[in-house]
């Protein structure tokens, strides 16, 4: 397989930020009370991750290694602020939905970890695909958690009534987020065990 496609796939399943790397679990629990929230935050993360990865990949030789972490934080904050300013001009309706989440992204562990582990060492094109893959993997994780929590907690999907009653209200409360993530992580580990025959190390293999 082409390396770029492999990087894309890598972020999606084999190194999924939430279920395999166990990074950025805080937002994954906090906002995934519905699929729509997960989708909105996920999309915002995809943009910030891709832009930050590309910026760091381009300027990696200029950034002094001793100050790389503050430099990355500035790059992330820059893109978050730019999205926060441009989005209300392009589409006020969408901004109204995501305004809350966009500002949270500055502190997401997944973004800075990809800059540190990948974009600071690789050229632009692989960094772009790595960022895109990780972003999509995060988006996928948020949507999956959101769908499960919304379905069981509110009996809805995308805000539409599916069941007509609320089977398990706890799912929509913070505790439910931990349950869902735990169960999905266990499923991922089980599949890995079945496929490779190895027992995954703690921390989702990392």
């Amino acid at each position, binding site marked *: 397989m082409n390396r770029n496609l492999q990087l894309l796939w890598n972020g999606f399943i084999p190194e999924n930020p939430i279920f395999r790397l166990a990074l950025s679990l805080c937002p994954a629990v*906090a906002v995934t*009370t519905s699929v729509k*929230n997960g989708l909105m935050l996920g999309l915002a993360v995809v943009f910030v991750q891709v832009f930050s990865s590309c910026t760091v990949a381009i300027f990696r030789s200029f950034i*002094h290694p001793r*100050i790389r972490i503050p*430099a990355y934080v500035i790059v992330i904050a820059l893109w978050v602020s*730019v999205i926060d300013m441009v989005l209300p001009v392009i589409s006020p309706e969408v901004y109204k939905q995501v305004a*809350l989440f966009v500002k949270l992204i500055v502190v997401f562990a997944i973004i800075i970890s990809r800059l540190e582990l990948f974009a600071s060492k690789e050229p632009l094109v692989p960094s772009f695909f790595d960022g895109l893959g990780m972003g999509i993997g995060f988006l996928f994780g948020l949507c999956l958690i959101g769908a499960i929590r919304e379905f069981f907690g509110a009996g809805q999907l995308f805000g539409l009534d599916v069941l007509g009653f609320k089977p398990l*209200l706890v799912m929509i409360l913070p505790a439910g987020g931990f349950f869902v993530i735990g169960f999905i992580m266990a499923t991922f580990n089980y599949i890995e065990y079945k496929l490779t025959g190895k027992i995954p190390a703690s921390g989702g293999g990392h």
Partner: protein
Amino acid sequence: MKEIFKITISLTAVCIGAAIILGAVFTQTEHIRKEQEEKTKKQTIEALLGYGPGKQAPPSLHVFSVYRYVIATPNKERMLAYVLPVKDGGHVILEIDLTGEPRRVIPLKAKEAELAEEGLRDRVVKEAIGKDYQVTFAQALYIADEEGKRLGYVIPSVTQGFKTFIHMMVSLNPQLTLNGIAITESEEDPGLGAEIEQPYFKNQFEGKTLEQLKNLKVVKEPLPQDYFTVLEPEKAKLAGLSAAQVKEIRDKFKDADIFALTGATISSRAVLNGVQDAVRKFAYRLGVLQAAIQKKNIQTAF
């Protein structure tokens, strides 16, 4: 020693680069954002007065803005100053001291558009009142008239929510009964506190009188299903309820307290506190303002 310079220069360069990009984007987007904010505000006020998509606001609807300022005279006496629109199209500033007695009436030569922008307005008002006065903007009020008759009042309010402040607008009819509320800005948790923006919560305030509002509480009880249906206009339409049926159910819950949102009692209480606070203060201030306007015999536009 040499390295520290390299680090400093590198980090400074990163910061300057980021600042230039941010500055460029900001100058390009700021005025559009402001325009949109004004537009949303206008729409929110019209929606609270009962006009929105599908029901165009008639040309006879006039929304007048009244701005309240807190001023301190050179000898540290505190007063209120209201910027009022007058009949001939201009504005006046009316000073009222803390006992409710009107003081000076200062004519203001500024256009409506100048007064709509906060920074500009502050400067114009300060100039008119006097250089040695301390002038602080407190609040805007919107008074709506239709065909020469009072339609209602819209009051912006701010209250401490679960995390940050909740900004909202409260609409009252001329008898000071709640017409409805709108949440304009909040950062409550999505799925929990953010539900305060849903009709099934907001509409519970509709029709509460000034007297009722004083003793209104937030109760931690599940929202009754029939009440929920009539609170959501779309759900009521789906359920095929006639206007009379909706009214009947609403009447049943006329004296009901506010039902707390599941998992967001603090946010629910915050909204109620904000509404109570805004309406109580407004009712008092309106009385003082109207008495002062009469004493000074100002021909207001509203």
